């Protein structure tokens, strides 16, 4: 018989290393033709940090995304970025990028203010133009600004570094500030369990993530979908079999990860939330994407067949055992 069940799982996740300094830095230069070189230490391993940094730099400078060329993770060229881990890069390297851009923009602002004859605070940099927030007619293009910079012998360069505001944790009680900010998420999963064979099918997963600000919806969804499927693996497929220190299943044919046939229909919900500490409020989603799907799927299996499981992954054998079907002959 096939039985369906639903389950919910939530999580919180502190962004960056726990109660430790973990800074990252960025260098930026706006070139005379308005193209930009951005150098960040942050390694893009497929999660898309290079794109995120380019979007943040473009927003801060008021240029388009296409203007920004990112050089990343080359220790002879880029400053320290720390690890691409702990869902920290959008928050920390993103803040560093924003600070670097802001420093370059300070020089640009000074020159533009002189040229347009308005106070610097009034100036808005947007879509390749610089204009006064009080008087739209007072404006110049970025190209004009760069020509003006050249005339004055000024260079639009910036360096930024960011270290999240945390404290070391007390060695006995762990009191302190472990992280500057947290991401939150809730996942609801629906599964179908075959009570005769123990097979578990994850049918649908809704996963809602508070990411602060979504820098790029498609990429955030991509993280969530990938996380849900890895969570499915965690909950119902994956396990390293180790015997006497030897891994028995180090290959894809023996360590089973979900295939295109196994994945549920996934509904990503991107939740935004006001905050100042991240770049424009952005937090992290890389690891949060994975986490709540695990308890949600486990809870859905429990809901379907009415028994509790104490171990992950939940295998078909476990299902039949908990249903009382594996009593010895």
């Amino acid at each position, binding site marked *: 018989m096939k039985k369906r069940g639903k389950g919910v799982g939530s999580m919180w996740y502190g962004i960056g290393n726990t109660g430790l300094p973990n800074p990252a830095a960025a260098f930026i230069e706006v070139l005379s033709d308005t193209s930009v070189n951005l150098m960040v230490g942050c390694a893009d391993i497929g999660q898309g940090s290079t794109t995120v940094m380019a979007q943040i730099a473009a927003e801060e400078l008021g240029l388009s995304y296409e203007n920004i060329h990112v050089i990343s*993770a080359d220790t002879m060229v880029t400053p320290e970025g720390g690890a691409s881990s702990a869902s920290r890069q959008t928050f920390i390297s993103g803040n560093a990028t924003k600070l670097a851009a802001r420093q370059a923009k300070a020089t640009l602002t000074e020159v533009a203010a002189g040229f347009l004859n308005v106070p610097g605070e009034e100036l808005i940099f947007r879509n390749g133009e610089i204009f006064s927030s009080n008087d739209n007619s007072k404006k110049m293009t970025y190209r004009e600004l760069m020509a003006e910079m050249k005339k004055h012998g000024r260079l639009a360069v910036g360096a930024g570094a960011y270290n999240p505001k945390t404290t070391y944790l007390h060695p006995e009680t762990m009191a302190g500030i472990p992280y500057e900010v947290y991401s939150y998420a809730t996942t609801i999963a629906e599964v179908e369990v075959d009570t005769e064979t123990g097979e578990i099918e994850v049918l649908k997963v809704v996963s809602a993530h508070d990411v602060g600000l979504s820098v790029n919806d498609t990429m955030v969804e991509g993280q969530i979908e990938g996380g849900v499927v890895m969570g499915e693996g965690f909950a119902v497929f994956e396990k390293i079999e180790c015997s006497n*220190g030897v*891994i028995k299943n180090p290959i894809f044919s023996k360590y089973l990860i979900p295939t295109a046939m196994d994945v549920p229909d996934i509904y990503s919900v991107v939740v935004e939330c006001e905050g100042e500490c991240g770049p424009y409020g952005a937090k992290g989603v890389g690891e949060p994407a994975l986490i709540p799907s695990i308890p949600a799927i486990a809870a859905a299996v429990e809901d379907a067949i009415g028994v509790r499981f104490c171990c992950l992954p939940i295998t078909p054998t476990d299902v039949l055992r908990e249903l009382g079907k594996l009593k010895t002959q």
Partner: protein
Amino acid sequence: MSDRDFSVLGQSVIRKDALSKVLGEAKFAADYKFEGMLYGGVFRSTVPHALIKHFDASKALALPGVACVLTAKDIPGKNRTGIIIKDEPCLVDDKVRRVGDAIAIVAADTPEQVNEALDLMEVEYELLEPIFTVERALEEDSPKIHGATNVHAKKHLECGDVDAAFAKCDVIVEHTYNTSMLTHMFIEPDAGIARYEDKIMTVYCSTQNPHYDRADVAGVLGLPNNQVRIVQVTTGGGFGGKLDISVQCHIALLSHFTGKPVKMVRSRKESTNVSAKRHPMTMKAKTGATKDGKIQAVEVYMTGDTGAYASYGPAVITRAVVHCMGPYEVPNVRVDAVFTYTNNPMAGAFRGFGVPQVAYCHEGQMNAIAKELNMDPIELRLLNAHKIGTTIATGQVLEESVGFKETLIQAAAKAKEVM
């Protein structure tokens, strides 16, 4: 939602790396070729815990095409690497601590010659008692894997008066949760290529952690940090599994000794066998609430097996302890955690650093409480959820960007629509 009007943020622009990837032009580490390059390989232990009595590479060295075989004594700098604690030898010197420890490295003209050379290397072990469980590791008479204790890390978190709070609870649930050792299975196995470029040791590799790699390569070669350049090339996924050193130190050493570029590409099997794993954890949890559903106290005892080397173990235990009560206002918390060394595969970073494990535990507890109280699990969470002004167990007051309730509300709404 922010009221700022952005021009670039929030837009689903096409990734910077998308075009080169859909064209197949993106160069991953294994795709690099340098003139005159050699291939490298690693001779690894097949036993979990042993002293090396004798190692003989003379037959391997006699093979045509073999440029060099290096062991620990050839290392010019420090023979210890490791993300947080430098406890892992680049090449085994004192003893073998796990199956897959690197004993020697070889460089040769072709991958086939590398394999033949590895087949011809001979090692004689003096076996030591291995430890495969946390329980055995904690016993007084167990052999010690590093130093004087097998306790790799121990943490205690406490706030409020847990015992008094439990005494006042209307409902208490207690369960033990176990999670398994897992592996990342990034699709690209670890790879890299190293050579001196203008006297700078330059390592092109698949990594999540280039600046850390730089320090470890410099340390092993005995060079200042600025004489080593790590270039992260297109990297085929990591999920935490490419934070530790993989091939970097080995290819740098081989290139240093041969004066030629050296490339190493791990097989899937080698990659999985020696990269860090997710810590298997056991969590014994007790959660108490009043009958109106307010969580009053949480107590957790957790153990984890960090395997032969620390890797990111210290980060995993700390993060797991901080997060193990979940995103809920819990005034009274007591957590104790112990991670031990064993002779199992090394456990380290894997997407979530212990939080996926503890989330299984705290959410299992929340669902159990909801069931006991016959409450909707979403309602129970909303009732206890973090909000602005919440004080968490470490004493931190949450001041901004706490969107938890919104995720509960929106997830429930979407689920109602589609399920």
